[in-house]
């Protein structure tokens, strides 16, 4: 018996070396302790909700009755909703207007500002000031400026030159441009600062060389400055598209999606599905629409990460 017992003891000894006790003494426990916040917080508030959104998208769920699986019904409902087309068109319109109005302004400003020899700090501080104003305050302030009557701030400027008054937020054709102008005001300063930093990285020798070849200032911008900014311009373009596709605060607070759904963006529709007073509680549809938008944005996000990655390894 005793002879037979020996291998068992040895075997348990071998096992013990990999058992929990030695694992603890080899800092396994402390590793776990340091990973715990990550596991708990990401598990509960990131990984689990992401998985749950896929489940919810194929469920009929409204918190009241138990959830039932409905396959792709939610996607069908969303795609058949006339507001879906409206919201996609509105979001695309917002992105387009933001591109036309908001995209060139920071670049032009940065090129001009980078050539100042005096008050350089003043220029950039003034451009950045709107970014510092809390977004909600900025929106509410502009809502006052946009007041419709002839006494509104913008309408009194128009009135002084004999125009207007315009129903800025009350007119279906004017509402979206008005929202975009506000959003541009709130954001252009940050982009100016990015471009200013990028302009510093243009090697002065290139300008020297261009001048030797007799290049005018426009040619220098066209053939030296802009090609050098190509990378950062593309990155800000993608970031702007990602941000405009998810615009919420501005249309929600300025127009609540109105008038006549002229400013209902995709995010506003998701909000209405899930939390709106009339639609509300359609969590499945909201999850489905979120996933549709995410799939679309995923392309941009992938391009962005691919770009910044090759960018950071290059320089």
């Amino acid at each position: 018996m005793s002879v037979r017992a020996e291998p068992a003891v040895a075997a348990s000894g071998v096992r013990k070396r990999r058992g929990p006790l030695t694992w603890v003494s080899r800092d396994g426990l402390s590793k776990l302790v340091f990973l715990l916040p990550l596991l708990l917080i990401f598990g509960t508030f990131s990984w689990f909700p992401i998985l749950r959104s896929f489940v919810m998208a194929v469920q009929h769920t409204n918190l009241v009755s138990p959830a039932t699986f409905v396959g792709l019904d939610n996607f069908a409902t969303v795609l058949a909703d006339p507001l879906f087309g409206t919201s996609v068109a509105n979001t695309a319109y917002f992105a387009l207007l933001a591109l036309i109005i908001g995209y060139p302004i920071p670049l032009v400003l940065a090129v001009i500002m980078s050539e100042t020899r005096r008050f350089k700090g003043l220029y950039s501080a003034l451009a950045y000031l709107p970014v510092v104003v809390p977004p909600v305050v900025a929106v509410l302030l502009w809502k006052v400026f946009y007041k419709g009557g002839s006494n509104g701030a913008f309408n009194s400027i128009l009135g002084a030159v004999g125009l207007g008054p315009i129903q800025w937020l009350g007119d279906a054709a004017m509402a979206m441009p008005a929202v975009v102008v506000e959003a541009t005001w709130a954001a252009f300063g940050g982009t100016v600062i990015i471009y200013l930093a990028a302009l510093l990285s243009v090697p002065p020798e290139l300008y020297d060389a261009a001048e030797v070849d007799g290049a005018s200032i426009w040619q220098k911008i066209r053939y030296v400055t802009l090609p050098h900014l190509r990378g950062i311009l593309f990155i800000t373009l993608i970031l702007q598209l990602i941000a405009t596709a998810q615009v919420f605060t501005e249309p929600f607070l300025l127009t609540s999606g109105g008038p006549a759904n002229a400013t209902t963006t995709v995010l506003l529709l998701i909000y209405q599905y899930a939390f709106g007073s009339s639609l509300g509680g359609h969590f499945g549809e909201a999850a489905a629409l979120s996933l549709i938008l995410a799939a679309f944005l995923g392309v941009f996000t992938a391009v962005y990460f691919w770009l910044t990655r090759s960018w950071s390894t290059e320089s």
Partner: protein
Amino acid sequence: MKLPLPFRRGRKTPQAAQRGLVSLADWRNRRFRWTLSTVHTLTLVALLIIGLGPILWLAKAAVTPTQDTLRQPLALWPNGFDLSLLTRAFTQIHIERYFMNTIWIAAGSWICQITVATTAGYALSVLRPRGGRFLYGLVLATLFVPAIVLLVPLYLTVLSMPIVNIKLVDTFWAVWLPAGASAFNVVLIKRFFDNLPREIFEAAQVDGAGPFRLFWSIVLPLSRPIVGVVSVFAVIATWKDYLWPMLVLPTPANQPLSVRLPTLERGIQLDLFLASLAISTLFPIVLFLIFQRMFLSGGGISGAIKG
């Protein structure tokens, strides 16, 4: 004749000094210089009107009675000052309460983000447990998921936490804890820890420092710069957030300024409302003026890239 500007600055070698688009020859050309300074002056005036104008208007409106603001919105000087508006914003609206809520929410989110990011960065970069690379991959993967996907399922999660069944809605925890799940922070801190010299850790271990001691006395003090960067992002992001706190903090007494201000708009006089807006803007602007350099240089760039 005055010397062209680059020469007047007293730099040792003007040619070698950072030159931009405009060449020295251009600067010597009087007509060109005149055009350029006109463009610059116009830009400065435009920036003054666009950048500072609305904020000055708000400052004026904060001490102007409603009737004045309504009748002549663009009057440069108010007819009558009503300084009591500023005190009424405190006594009547209790703006300090929502201001403190904002501060509390920002502080709690900051602690949560820093705790998760530093411990996770330390574990993944220095302790390197088995499966660490896989975990890091899972963290990176969430960078590709836009925040909107999380909105509805995250709301249902804080409504009733999985397994433990606790309701976080209407407590600050509903904002604090989800803020910690920022993959961007973890990546930033882990990369910083990756670049710390391994010799320091080995030396500390030889001296008998355990993993906790190593974290507290070596790694954290060394990572002050990156923790500072993450902190600035964390505070700015929570200060600006609107949709999430609006969803999870339905009781007005718990709401931060950003959530409370839009609901005030309907309930109070315009002059009092604008005074409240002005007071809410004051704090960030003062912070900006103090830390201007940081915002306008590197920090602002990565902050903007973060989006």
